[in-house]
């Protein structure tokens, strides 16, 4: 395939601005899929993601398109749409030369529009801006065009008018992809260099490697080398995504497709690695990506202890297709055997948890997420812990350190005040302000990661009416006056409810937490006191009063079986509860620590 007739592009947009709908429309109108094959949101093939309307795992499709009599091959590489997966977005963008940027014609420029546009610019992509959902009964065409100009620097003339719903402007989009996105460069004669932008585990064929070829050619029978580990493999099949995996003869410069090389071990295949020829390796690998950084950890425990092995298998299965997720066994006095899991962010965590419950039918208790801490011991060794339980308070610790991130906010100028207030409430250190125009500014803060992950993004959104965007990167660990906040339920310490908090916030958090737990734990036949304590000192207390009335209606018609089953079910309905002494604590309570917010 002559690279001159190849175009590689992504679509980036703020969530809900119509990326999936427009993608489907592109595939339909080019006949890549037929109406019959068309399933809603074809590209989001994982249920959980479809439910949430977001794509998490990047995938790709090859579209055949004829422009002025000349057949073209358009490779569409899909991207995830949430800040947690920022890392995966840049991964997809690195496989492309261009990007469609969709902006909802009513909602206008939003947080992720900006973040994604910047990501695309950083990757040196040609951007095709589109005013999408133009069929909406109410659109704010002029205002949104103006926003796109001031915030993103697009001329109104270059912005396409599109609608994935009604099909308006799809031809223009296809034409613009051919005309505005540069053709890939690269020579077929050069040694093979192909970027691995994703991989998937297939039970029958082993690892399917998703690649974008930069130089050279790969075909069935080629001997390849994965540059990072230096392992050699024979290619059993190459193919394209049309949209189902379809074998082809070869993949040449500029092409996007997959390689099956009989690799059974996913850990050999690194996203961002370069595939080259075994006999004639390239000297330099492609730039690749930063490894994903796990930011959030939590415990996952099966409610039924017998589900432990099943949970291990399921986690293993998920980790196969998600290199950014990790898990190791852990034990809790309160919850028994489970796993400590690491995630890119909160959304990532929620998705994995939901997928587990849905696909594996395991009832889980998930503990409140936390970040990694460092303990500087008296003997000057540094210990990393990602579990509040492992923090020892035995006097061998000299310093307690927490991760600090540099946070970049881009916010409307009139929101600077409230954002600064938010950051100072969250123990932030101010770094700089820079105006990007009269109406937008970039603020930089250093903040403890723990203060950022839970709800900073939501807070930012609400303060800035959705127009704020943020991004963060880890810059290191810093000493802080942290304490372990224990929770006692009816005098029993429940380790899984413990959290690490800054001393100055401990009392407020303790009070709020007791209050939330009081709402979550239902009445028992006896009083249930809930206490928050630092060491032996109780800093907050609430009491759940005893149940006062519980007698059901009549045993009608002598249906005693039913009556008994109802009573037994009362017991079974408690499946999602965990028994602590005589107190039953519902699953949800373990996450209560999350939404106690800023009371």
């Amino acid at each position, binding site marked *: 395939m002559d690279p001159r007739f190849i175009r590689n592009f992504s679509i980036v947009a703020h969530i809900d601005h119509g990326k999936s709908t427009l993608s489907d429309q592109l595939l339909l109108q080019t006949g890549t899929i037929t109406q019959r094959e068309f399933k809603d949101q074809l590209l989001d093939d994982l249920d959980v993601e479809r439910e949430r309307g977001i794509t998490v795992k990047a995938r790709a499709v090859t579209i055949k398109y004829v422009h002025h009599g000349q057949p073209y091959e358009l490779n569409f590489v899909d991207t995830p749409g949430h800040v947690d997966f920022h890392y995966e977005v840049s991964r997809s963008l690195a496989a492309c030369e261009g990007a469609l940027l969709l902006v909802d014609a009513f909602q206008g420029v939003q947080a992720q529009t900006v973040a994604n546009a910047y990501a695309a610019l950083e990757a040196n992509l040609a951007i095709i801006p589109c005013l999408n959902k133009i069929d909406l009964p109410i659109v704010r065409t002029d205002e949104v065009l103006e926003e796109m100009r001031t915030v993103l620097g697009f001329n109104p003339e270059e912005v396409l008018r599109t609608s994935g719903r009604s099909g308006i402007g799809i031809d223009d989009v296809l034409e613009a992809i051919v005309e505005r996105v540069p053709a890939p460069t690269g020579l077929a004669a050069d040694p093979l260099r192909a970027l691995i932008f994703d991989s998937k585990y297939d039970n029958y064929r082993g690892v399917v490697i998703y690649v974008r070829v930069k130089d050279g050619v790969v075909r069935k029978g080629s001997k390849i080398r994965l540059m990072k580990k230096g392992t050699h493999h024979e290619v059993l099949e190459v193919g394209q995504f049309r949209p189902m995996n379809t074998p082809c003869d070869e993949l040449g410069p500029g092409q996007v497709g997959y390689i099956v090389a009989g690799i059974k071990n996913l850990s050999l295949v690194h996203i961002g690695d370069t595939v080259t020829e075994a006999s004639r390796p390239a000297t330099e690998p492609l730039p690749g990506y930063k490894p994903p950084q796990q930011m959030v950890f939590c415990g996952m425990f099966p409610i039924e202890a017998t589900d432990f092995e099943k949970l291990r298998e399921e986690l293993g299965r998920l980790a196969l297709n998600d290199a950014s997720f990790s898990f190791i066994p852990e034990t809790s006095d309160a919850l028994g055997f489970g796993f400590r899991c690491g995630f890119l962010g909160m959304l990532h965590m929620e998705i994995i948890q939901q997928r587990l419950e849905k696909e594996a039918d395991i009832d889980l208790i998930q503990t409140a997420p936390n970040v990694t801490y460092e303990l500087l011991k008296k003997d000057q060794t540094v210990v990393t812990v990602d579990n509040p339980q492992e923090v020892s308070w035995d006097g061998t610790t000299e310093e307690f350190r927490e991760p600090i991130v540099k946070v970049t906010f881009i916010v409307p100028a009139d929101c600077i005040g409230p954002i600064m207030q938010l950051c100072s409430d969250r123990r932030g250190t101010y770094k700089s302000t820079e105006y990007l125009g009269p109406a937008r500014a970039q603020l930089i803060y250093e903040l403890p990661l723990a203060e950022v992950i839970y709800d900073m993004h939501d807070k930012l959104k609400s303060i800035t009416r959705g127009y704020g965007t943020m991004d963060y990167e880890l810059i290191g660990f810093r000493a802080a006056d942290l304490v372990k906040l224990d929770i006692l339920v009816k005098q029993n310490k429940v380790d899984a409810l413990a959290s690490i908090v800054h001393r100055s916030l401990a009392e407020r958090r303790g009070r709020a937490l007791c209050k939330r737990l009081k709402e979550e734990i239902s*009445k*028992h*036949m*006896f009083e249930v006191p809930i206490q928050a304590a630092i060491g032996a000192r109780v800093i907050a207390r609430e009491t759940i009063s005893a*149940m*006062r*009335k*519980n*007698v*059901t*209606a*009549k*045993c*009608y*018609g*002598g*249906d*005693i*079986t*039913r*009556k*008994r089953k109802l*009573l*037994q079910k*009362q*017991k079974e309905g408690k499946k999602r509860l965990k028994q602590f002494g*005589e107190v039953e604590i519902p699953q949800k309570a373990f996450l209560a620590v999350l939404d106690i917010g800023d009371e």
Partner: protein
Amino acid sequence: MRSRPGGRAVSIPYVPWEPVDPLGVPRAAYVHVPFCVHRCGYCDFTVVAGRDDLISAYLDALACELSRLESPQPVETLFLGGGTPTHLPERSLERLLELVREWFPLSSGGEFSVEANPVGLSPAKLGLLADAGVNRVSLGVQSFDTQSLATLERDHSPELARQTVEAVRDRFPECSVDLIFGVPGQSLVTWQTTLETAIALGPTHLSAYGLTFEKGTAFWGRRLKGTLASIPDELERSQYELAMELLSACGFGQYELSNYARAGHESRHNATYWANGPYFAAGPGAARYVKGTRETNHRSTTTWIKSTLAGRTALSSQEKLSLEDRARETLMLGLRRTAGVFFEAFQKQTGFALEEIAKPLLARDWLRDCLAIDEERIALTREGRCVADSVVAALWE
């Protein structure tokens, strides 16, 4: 004198407890009549509303099901429940009464109860019942408060309820009034007025049930949506306690969690359930307990009719309990009776020691206030009655 673990003695009415033989031939029968004018929002009984077209098929199916008894089964108590048995038009009602009397001849001195609702309970229908030997009518009054009646989606007025109670009382030896508390919007005072009104009408028997939200009912959905809320725990408890106090002060002894009667007017049919004794049953959704096997007919009226007429059984569940589970049930049911469960009778009836089966209850600290235990029996205290479901649920923990 034997010593018993835990608990403390309180005075509880003493009604001796005769052991029953669950494997013996039943002396009680229940027949379910599923028809109602409309379905009340809280109702999860086996009911069809607005399907009077099914009545004749229902009667055919009932005849069919009863004929499987092979020979008439003399009983001491016969209960027609619903639904609203008296919703049937006179001709059908007559046929129903004939049918059940044919298959379940009542021994002399037996109790023949029928459930009825005020609307449509004409003097003619009352006459039919009386002529057929019905001697106990249980009226679904539920409330004498217009507001509560509306909330419950009942179709009668307080006035009609009053007139109906009077008519029934004057005509039948036993007249029972069903009331419901815990109705959204019902205050302690309106409940008191309802109780007083009922007492003043002079029935022989009163039932007072707490409203429950059952899965699948309109109320359940409304509560999920937040358009209907249960009343506070504490208020519902006060209403229940008020019923216990007021009724016993007026001569209605509480003999079961929800049932009160003038001395000697306790329902004998229900006593079979609470003693875990055997009983026949017929009709959709009806449950029988014969030869140690519990069976429940299909709860869909149309399915029950179809299968029965096709000569098939229409069971939705069938279970033969282990001896131990049977004993546990005996305790579960027995505790509903105010008199409690007697050690000796329990042992005789079930073959298990009561303290063995009741162990999960006795082991629990928090149940101390709920159970009254003396040499002869275990009973619920007043506290225990208030939370009876939680107490009994502990049996399976």
